C-alpha cells in the first residue's frame, strides 16, 4: 500500500468484522499484526489506504463497529 493507515481495535473480533465489511464493499484493505510501537495488543489490525479513511470511518459507524483509533503509517517504514 502506498499511503497506509491502520485501524486499531480493542478486540480482534472487530478487526475481522471490519475486514468482512470492507471485503463486501470491495474497498482495499489488508489484515496485519498490530505494529508494536502503536499498541501492546497481541492481535491484528486492518490496514487501509489513507485516502479511504473518511469513507471507512463512515462505514464503521453505519455498521456499529467500534474501534480504538486510526493511525497513519506514512513515513514510518
Amino acid at each position: 500500500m502506498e499511503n497506509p493507515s491502520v485501524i486499531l481495535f480493542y478486540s480482534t473480533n472487530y478487526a475481522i468484522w471490519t475486514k468482512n465489511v470492507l471485503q463486501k464493499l470491495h474497498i482495499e484493505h489488508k489484515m496485519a499484526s498490530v505494529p508494536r510501537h502503536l499498541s501492546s495488543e497481541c492481535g491484528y489490525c486492518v490496514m487501509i489506504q489513507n485516502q479511504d479513511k473518511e469513507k471507512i470511518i463512515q462505514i464503521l459507524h453505519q455498521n456499529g463497529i467500534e474501534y480504538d483509533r486510526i493511525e497513519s503509517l506514512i513515513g514510518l517504514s
Partner: protein
Amino acid sequence: MLSPKAKVVYFDNPATSFPKPEIVVDAIAQCMKEIGGNPGRSGHRMSMEAGEQIFFTREVLSDFFGVQNPMKVIFCSNATDALNLAIQGLAYQGGHAITSSMEHNSTIRPLYELEKQGKIRLSIIPCSSEGLLSCGHLENAITKQTSMVVINHSSNAFGTEQPIQKIGEICKNRGIAFIVDSAQSAGILPLNMAKDNISILAFSGHKGLYGPMGTGGLIIADDFNHKKIRPLKFGGTGSLSDKIEQPDFLPDCFESGTLNVPGVAGLRAGILFIKEKGLACIRKHKEDLVAYFLKKARAAVPGFLTYIPDSSIKTGIISFNIQGFLCSEIANALSEEYNIMSRQGLHCSPLAHKSMGTFPHGTVRFGFSIFNTKEECDLAIESLQEITQKKGKK
C-alpha cells in the same frame, strides 16, 4: 436377542440430536485439519482464519435470531452454561426473579441457589395442565423489585410452547429483563429477539440446531445493555493484554478462554442446514411423525398413555407411559432388545413433571429429528407391542 447389526433408531434428539448432518461433520473436520490457530490471540494467518470461523458463525446466528450486531452473540459450551451466565450475571444486583414450573434444571437450579444464598427472591409460577403459563398469573407476580423473568420456550419433557411474545411484551412494558431458554425450540419454532421482545436468549447448539456437543451460547438483544450482566468467568481474551482488568466490551467480556472453534464451525453448518430445509418444513416433518406415531400407538399398544392434548405438542416430543410398566422398564427394553434409544424418567425437569402429574415416576420420551422416519415409528410401535405382550405371557 438383539443382533449387533440391528438398525439403530435414535429418538433421544431432545438430549442431543443424532445423527448430525454430513455438512456439520465435514465443517468440523475441515476446521481441525486446516484451521488450527487460536482465534484472537496471535497475529498470524491461521489465528485470523480461526477468528473468521467464529465471526461467520456470529453473523449467521445473529441473522437467524433477529439481532443486528453480531458481537451480541456470545459463545458458551452449552445452554446450561449460557443460562448460568445470564441468570447469575443479572442477579448480582439482587431483586426478584420470576420463572415457571415448566423449567429445566439448568434454569431452576441457578435460580434456587441464588435464592438460597439470599441474593434474590424467587417466584415459580405454576402452569396449566397443558403446560402453559398464564400471562395474568405472571402480571400478578410482578412487583417493583422484579428484575428478571426466565422462561423455557418449549418443554423438553412434553414439547409444549409458551407464549413468549406476550410474556416479552409484559416484561418490556415494565423494563424487566426477559431471558428465554430456547434449548428445545431453536431450529424448530420461529424465534426473533426483536419481535418476541426477548432481552437475552440462551441456546443449545447441539440439539435442534444440529451442531456438535459442547456448543451453545447467549444472544443479547440489540437494545439490551450488556453491562447489566456481570461476567462469570474472567481471564484471557486476547484483547487489552496490557491490563489485568477484564474488558467490558462485547463479546470479549464474556468469552474468556479459548473457544471451541471446530464446534462453532460445525454449529454454523448446522444452521445453514436448517435454513436450507426451512423451519416450517422441519416442524411439519415432526408434526407428521407425532400424529402418525400417536394414532398407531393408541390403536396397537394396550395401556398407551399420554398427558397433554396432541395439539399442544409443538416440537416433536412424545412423553408417554404404558399402564402396568415402569417407564424405565420400557426404555431399557427398547434399548437392549430393539436398539431404540429413548430417555425415561424426569428429564431434568422435576417441576414440569409435577405440573403434569407424572412426578415422581416420569415418562418415556421420544423426540424426533428431521432424520427420523415413519418406518422407525412403525418399528418402535411393534417393539412396544412385543414388550407388552411378553409381560402379559409371564
